[in-house]
Structures are given as C-alpha cells and as structure tokens.
C-alpha cells in the first residue's frame, strides 16, 4: 500500500488540531481575556485531570468494552487518599501508594470478574460502580475530609515559576506520553488493539484474552486513581461526590478523538486533543457568560457531532478504497 500525500489528513488528530487552533484563535479574537494568564491556568487545570479520566476510559474502549466505574474508582480513591491522611495521619507518599493500590485492585476486580464470568464489562462495571460508590458513602457517610496536608494543597495550587502552567498538569502530560508509547510501541498495547478489533482472530494468533482484559482494566483503575487524587489536590478536600460527573466527559474525549466503541481503534493524541476541545469550548461558554446548563447540552451535541463526522470519514474511506482497488 502506498503512502499518499493525504495521509496526514487521514490521521484522527490532524483535523482535531485544526479545530483546536481555529477555535482558540476565534475565541481569542472575540475575547482577548481568553489568553490571559489566569484563564490559561484555569484551562490547564481542568485539562489536567480530564486527560487522565479520558485515558482511563480510552484503554477500555480500546479492547471494545466500557468502564462505567471510572468515576466510582476515582471517588473511592479520593476519599481513601484524603481519609488516611486526616484520620491516621499517614504521610503523603504512603497515602499516594494506598490510593494507587486501591485503584489498581478495583480495576483488577473489574477485569477479573469480566474475564471469569464472560459477562459484558458494561454490567460488571455497573455493579462495581454501585459497590465502590457504596463503600465510599458507607465510609464517609457523605461527609467530606477537610484536613488535607499543606504539601498536597500547595501542589494543587502551585504554578511553575511565573508561568501560568500549573504543577497539576505535569503528571497528566507524562502519563499521556507513556500511554502513547504503550499503545503504539509495546506488544501488550498492540495486543489490546488487536483484541478490540476481533476477539476471535486475536485468540487464534495466540493472544491471551484474559491477560489483555485484566491488564486493560488494571491500567484503567490505576489511571482513575491518579485522577481521583489530582482532583483532591485541586479541590483541597476529599468529598465523596468526586467522580460522580465523570461518565459523560470520559466518553466524550475518546469519541471526539475518533475512537470506535466496538474497539480496536483509539488514538492517544486525538483523545488528548478531544479533552482540549471540550475544555476550550467549556471555558469559552464561561467567558461569554452563557448559561452553565448549556455546557451540558453542548457536551452532548459535541459527542453527536463527533459521531457524525467519524461516520462520514469512514464512509469516505470505504468509497476511496473501492475506487483504488486495482492499484
């Protein structure tokens, strides 16, 4: 197959990058305040944890499943992280480890039960969503933990030098890079995409489906844990309702990034750009003083639009394949 000059155009992320640049320029022209240091800071803070949430969902979409419990894992980790620091006076690094372990275990349970039972991950993670959320509410009785150590609070507020770049965004950027390497350059990552594409062919060429599914869920749980803890740093407290509103954005970014829900096709960079688009436009709605409820409608419309665009591109690609069949 020859690489054509339009191969750049076929990349999922290329069109999105143009959307990001155009919408950014357009909003900045109408409202110069959009590019103010404060505004960029707020934008990057919201991008930081949304990036991790989106990647946490993306890796499950890659294997053709869904993880409804991303928010519940994030919430459970958030309250455990802040809870152990407040109640047992545990040092920050240990608390972080506890949080990561809880997230990983939750993800492992999701993956393990899904593989062993053969029931769709949708139902399993719906059940575990309520289990994790139930444990969360059972422990906290809906009361937040306020006593967060100063180091954690500072981390949530600090900026790098005098630039508007928050510390919070460092970890998400590194993780995005690692995820890109993982999905594109490692065997396990490629196996996941192969599994998502076709379970049967993946098994025929000797990919262990249980290993792939469990690994994907473990990574998803691990990322949800990081997101939960980042939100604690950001909010400066651990409230039980962290994670409640993650479901829609977690799907929005990968889908806008061209992910196919049937599995086998995800793009880390496009997902990251999807997060950026959602963040830029949500921010713009705030700057233009548009009804906050409209953000909700907008998110929904964005998902539908992305779905239509992906559909159209698929259709285009199919028809171009037919024309050049004899090459």
């Amino acid at each position: 197959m020859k690489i054509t000059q339009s191969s750049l155009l076929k990349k999922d992320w290329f069109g999105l990058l143009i959307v990001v640049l155009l919408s950014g320029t357009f909003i900045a022209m109408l409202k110069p305040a959009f590019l103010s240091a404060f505004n960029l800071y707020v934008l990057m803070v919201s991008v930081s944890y949304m990036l991790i949430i989106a990647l946490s969902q993306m890796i499950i979409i890659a294997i053709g499943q869904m993880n409804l419990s991303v928010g519940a894992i994030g919430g459970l980790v958030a309250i455990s992280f802040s809870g152990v620091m407040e109640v047992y006076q545990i040092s920050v690094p240990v608390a972080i480890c506890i949080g990561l372990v809880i997230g990983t275990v939750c993800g492992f349970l999701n993956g393990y039960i899904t593989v062993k039972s053969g029931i769709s991950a949708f139902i399993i993670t719906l059940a575990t969503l309520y289990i994790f959320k139930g444990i969360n509410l059972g422990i906290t009785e809906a009361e937040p933990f306020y006593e967060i150590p100063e180091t954690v609070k500072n981390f949530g507020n600090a900026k790098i030098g005098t630039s508007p770049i928050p510390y919070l965004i460092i970890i998400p950027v590194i993780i995005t890079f690692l995820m890109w390497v993982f999905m594109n350059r490692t065997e396990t990552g490629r196996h996941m995409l192969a599994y998502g594409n076709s379970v049967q062919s993946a098994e025929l060429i000797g990919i262990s489906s249980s290993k792939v599914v469990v690994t994907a869920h473990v990574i998803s749980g691990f990322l949800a844990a990081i997101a939960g803890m980042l939100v604690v740093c950001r909010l400066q407290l651990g409230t039980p309702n962290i994670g409640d509103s993650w479901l829609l954005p977690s799907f929005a970014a990968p889908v806008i990034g061209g992910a196919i829900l049937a599995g086998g096709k995800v793009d880390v960079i496009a997902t990251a750009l999807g997060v950026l688009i959602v963040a830029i436009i949500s921010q713009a709605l705030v700057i233009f003083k548009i009804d906050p409820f409209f953000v909700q409608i907008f998110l929904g419309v964005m998902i539908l639009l992305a779905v239509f665009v992906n559909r159209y591109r698929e259709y285009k690609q199919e028809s171009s394949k037919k024309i050049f069949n004899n090459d």
Partner: protein
Amino acid sequence: MNKKIPNFVFTNQFGLLCLVVTFILIFSTVTDGFTSRFNIFALSRVVAIDIMIGLAMMVVILTGGLNLALGAIGVCAAMFGGWCMETMGIPVIPSIFLILGMGSFLGWVNGMITVKTGVHSFIVTLATMSIYFGLMTMLTEAEAFRRLPETFTEFGSMKLFKKYISPLLLLSLATCGALFYLFKYTDIGRKLIAAGANPDAAELSGISVNTMFIYCHVLSGFLAAMAAIMLTTRIGAAIPSMAGQLGMDWLLPAFLAPVIGGTLLSGGKLSVFGTMLGAVLVTLITNGLYLIDVGEFWIRFFLGIILLIAVLLDKTREFFTLKSVIVS
C-alpha cells in the same frame, strides 16, 4: 407433556419467584413493620414505578442497545406535563396524552439518530441524555411545578384493597400484561424480537430492522413517560431533580430489573415477567435493608453486590440448562 413442569422449574422466573418468597419470609420474621399496611402500600407504589422503569429499559435492551437517556426522558416528560397542567391549564386527561407523546417523541429522536448513524445506542443516548436534561433545566430554569391539579395528584395517594395497594401497581401490572401480549402474540412484537435476535437474518426475511429498532426506542420513551407520570402523582409535583443528576438515579433500577429478570444484553431475548419479578425483588431487598437498618449509605453497596450475584447466578443457570426460550 410431563416435560412441562421441570421446564418451568429451570426457568429464571421460577428462581426469582423463590427468591422473592424467601426474602418476604425473611424480612417479615426479622423486622417489625414489614407487613404493616403502611409499608405494603409504600412498597406497592415504589415497585410500580420500578417495574415501569425496568420495562422501559427492557424494550431497548431487546435491540441489543441501551437507553441511558431513560431518566432524562422521564424528567423531561414530567416537567412538560407540569407545564401543560399548571401554566397552560390543560385538563388532566389531554395532558397525560401530551406527556406520553413527549416521551415517545424523545424516544423516537434516540431511535432515529441510532439507526441513521449506525452508532451504538450507548453513545447516542449518553449524548441525548445530556442534551435533553440540559434543555429541560434551561427551559424550566430548574423550577418545580408544585400546583398540579388535585385530580392528578390524588391518584398517587389513592389506596385500594383495604388500603393495602396503590392503583399505580395495577397500572404497572396491566402494562406488563399488555407487553407480554405484544411480544408473545402479535405480529409486530415477534418482529421486534426477531430484529433484535439477529438483525441480518431479520432483514433478509423482509423485516425492516431499522423501523423495528425505532419502534423499540419510541416504546421505551413512552414507558419512561408512564413511569414519570406515576412518580409525579406519587410526589405530587414535577421536580427537575426527581431522577437525580441527568436522570441517572433511574439507571440502577432500570438495569437491575431486566438483567436479573433474564433479558439478554446482546438482544433478542426478553422476559416481561422476569423484569417484573426483578423489580419486585430489588424493591423488596432495598426496603428490607432499610428496615433492618444497615444504614442508608450502605444500600448502594448491597444493590451492587446483588446485581453482581444475580448476573453470576444467571450465567451458571444458563450453563446448566443450555436452553433458549425466547419469551417465557
């Protein structure tokens, strides 16, 4: 003929029935007040709505899809009804038809988008959930309608059968009967099942699968609007938060009832009475847990565990019986 009896014993419904009876026995011995007139009446009202929500989800699961916008449709329909009756002064009966029409319309939109784009209904209804709910909040400015006509609200507090049972339950049971008839004995009902079971085969045998899928979404919207009407008469007002943020509070009962009741998530197999029993079981357990006093915060945890156990048990049962009954 003597095969009939073991067949029934192995069905999911029989297992559920046993569970329901067991739980009734446990709760009525362990707790005080489980069999009190007040509790049974309260139970009957909650069960009625949960059955309706379960059925609304069931008809979309039949297509192999999902309807996450269920709660949002319900709330939109209820708020629209509140606006019709309170602001516009439309009488109760025409208003009810308008509410049902609204629900069906929103379901139709879901169905149209799903069919036209060919995208999984999960993502379509995830998007429309957010759109419907957002539009509703903007239009109503999150204000409730609390001055509904008395004839409308009285229905929800009416008590029948020596004040034990709410008429809402009868309405739900009648709907179950109607759906059972639809899926078992009518041409269109059988076509709906065939389209869900194997879309390609159905298409080849001359069924318009797309039309059938749209019908399922319309029916789902209609049933969601029914549930919304019942909830509105029960609380006596149309409130934007009556199904939680984005209407997501309805999702757990919506999935619990059909899944416990033996409806296949891949589509093509449903059980109306299974869904009904599933809803009864879940409501019973929730109510019992409250009475045992496990603490309201742990209820979700137990419901999650129950859903997990139910699907795992169902898997084992499937393994042992290896039977496929389309509608039983």
